[in-house]
């Protein structure tokens, strides 16, 4: 099929439409999904697939998640839409204690093919209860898979893979990316494996690891750096748990320098995990500390200016890359000292 330029929010809907059409066991549950939800991601699906498969739910996240876990255990493939990722807090017991564990606890007898779509991120001055990026919590829970797309094509391909997956997958969508357009192919070939990082921009001087909206920011940072003659390689992680560590390590072994950029709070964030893995497995290749660029250790402030200050920008990522390049090479220095 030929690629057409569509918005990410439309790519998400197309992915659901494709899987709903392909598999009668796929159902969609969420608040106001019959009318498209707050951002239109599910608009029109009820007309096409009927009220039995596209179901509005009460504002009862815990019960809805539990219902979906039970439905998945009994043979359906539910897609649950959590209107804002912040509200996943209300369903966390069902996700952590049930969805993530039932295959394991039952010794492999149960399968929970559940997809949970969550819209996340800071934009639009929604404040502390509607803006969080909470992927580190979910990536910490064995049994959950977590993915996040930065392009409409990946939003399509990852969501289709998630719906087909035999285990619970959390799909994180960034609302600031919903209206961005990109080429999207719609077919089996467009499905993206869940744990597959991709090099968005090749480079030789430093590696930037990012995901979701921060990949867009990282690419802007790479443009800034290219103007200075610095060639940064930008990796879009896409799969956050499990993670394609091999692609990251291969890049860092070539460049010797790494920056991890994400929008979530830095302390205890997924960036720490990426940095720790690089430090463990590419220690000898590292010529500078792995820098983390992330949100500060505060809730998301509401004021537009404070919100902008909260979200890392391209300048911050570029500055971190420059810092890694400004480091003297410790190995070279010790060699020189040894002479």
């Amino acid at each position, binding site marked *: 099929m030929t690629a057409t330029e569509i918005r990410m929010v439309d790519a998400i809907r197309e992915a659901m439409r494709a899987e709903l059409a392909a598999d009668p066991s796929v159902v969609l549950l969420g608040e106001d999904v019959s009318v498209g939800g707050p951002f239109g991601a599910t608009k029109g699906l009820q007309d096409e697939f009927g009220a039995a498969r596209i179901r509005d739910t009460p504002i009862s996240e815990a019960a809805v998640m539990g219902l979906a876990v039970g439905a998945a255990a009994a043979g359906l493939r539910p897609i649950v839409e959590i209107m804002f990722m*912040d509200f996943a*807090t*209300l369903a*966390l*017991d069902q996700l*952590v*204690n049930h969805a*993530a*564990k039932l295959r*394991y*606890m039952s010794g492999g007898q149960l399968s929970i093919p559940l997809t949970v779509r969550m819209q996340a991120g800071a934009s639009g001055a929604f*404040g*502390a*209860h509607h803006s969080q990026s*909470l992927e*580190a*919590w979910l*990536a*910490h*829970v*064995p*049994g959950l898979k977590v993915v996040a797309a930065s392009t409409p094509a990946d939003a399509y391909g990852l969501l289709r893979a998630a719906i087909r997956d035999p285990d619970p997958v959390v799909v994180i969508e960034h609302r600031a990316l919903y209206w961005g357009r990109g080429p999207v192919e719609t077919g089996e070939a467009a499905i993206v494996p869940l744990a597959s990082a991709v090099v968005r921009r090749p480079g030789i001087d430093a590696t930037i690891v990012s995901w979701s909206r921060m990949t867009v920011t990282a690419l802007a940072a790479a443009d800034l750096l290219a103007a200075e003659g610095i060639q940064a390689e930008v990796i879009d992680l896409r799969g956050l*748990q499990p*993670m394609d560590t091999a692609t990251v390590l291969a890049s860092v072994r070539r460049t010797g320098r790494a920056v991890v950029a994400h929008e*979530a*709070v830095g*302390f*205890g*964030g*997924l*960036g*720490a*995990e990426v*940095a*720790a893995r690089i*430090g*463990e*497995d590419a*220690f*000898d290749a*590292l010529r*500078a*500390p*792995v*820098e*983390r660029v992330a949100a*500060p*250790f*505060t*809730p998301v*402030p*509401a004021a537009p200016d404070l919100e902008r200050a909260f979200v890392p920008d391209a300048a911050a990522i570029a500055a971190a890359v420059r810092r890694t390049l400004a*480091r*003297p090479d*410790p*190995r070279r*220095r*010790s060699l020189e000292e040894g002479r």
Partner: protein
Amino acid sequence: MTAVYADGMALGLREVLAEDPRVYLMGQYFFGLTRHRRLTVELMRDFPGRVWNPPIAEVGYAGTGIGAAISGLRPIVDIATASFIFQAWPQVVNEAANIRYMTGGQTGVPVVFHITHGIRGGGASQHSHSPQAMLMNTPGLQIISPSTARDVRGLIRAAVQSDDPVVWIDHVKLFDIEGELPDAPETIPMGVADIKRRGTDLTIVATSLQVQRSLVAAERLAAEGIQAEVVDPRTLVPLDRATILQSVGRTGRLVVVDECHRSCGVGAEIAATVAEDAFDALRAPIIRVATEDVPIPFSRTMEEAVQPTVEKIIAAAHAVMEARRPRG
């Protein structure tokens, strides 16, 4: 005097109840189902009306604790087994953690949430959680994670005196471990790590029960001639980075031992922050000893296989001692 950890807890609770009439205990499973549960009964007897046994409603009574804290009490809310905190999650992370910040500093929430974390033996997947890494990623909470009778007693006082929410995390396997208690009450400040054992060859940063396991490992390493320094952060938020970095600055080698799952665990943050700020001092890769990325299995052999043990700590210490990189 010598006392077990559970006695330190009970003494800490007794002291804050006696000193401050605003302190209430909401919940009564501070000691789980262990033999120490009689200590709660004694507190109920000695402080009538100050210990409330709430319904099985974690969202409801965690929120009750928050509201009570806003309106003048200093509640210690016992969520009991840490796995149950996921039921209370929206109250702990969405409400308590955010309120001071969201209100621009107008309203404080001096509440303490108590949980008992970790692999306790036969707890399986739904009674063995160590959720501290997830809580650590939540700005607005403070997290105390003591490892000795003295620390738990002193940190309880700090937690109750704080004007902001605190999650107090115990490990059930600490309850019977003996230690020294000073005669007088003391307050152990937030964000001050404690070097539990001095050493020059490598640094082991460990938390909660793993401090005790690391001390055992350090004794065995000493018998081989390897001197390990054991650093206990005591509070995860705020984290005393300076003490950790100074220790690694001296030893050049670091093992982090924590019972959270490896991915995005407490160990990841400590490893990443040391690699950032003590890069030139590091002479070997940082090794994390953590619980493997699987739910906790029930059977004893599998439980042992997935969790940090003295043997795994020793193996990690050997690995960082073998790796060689000249100092930068």
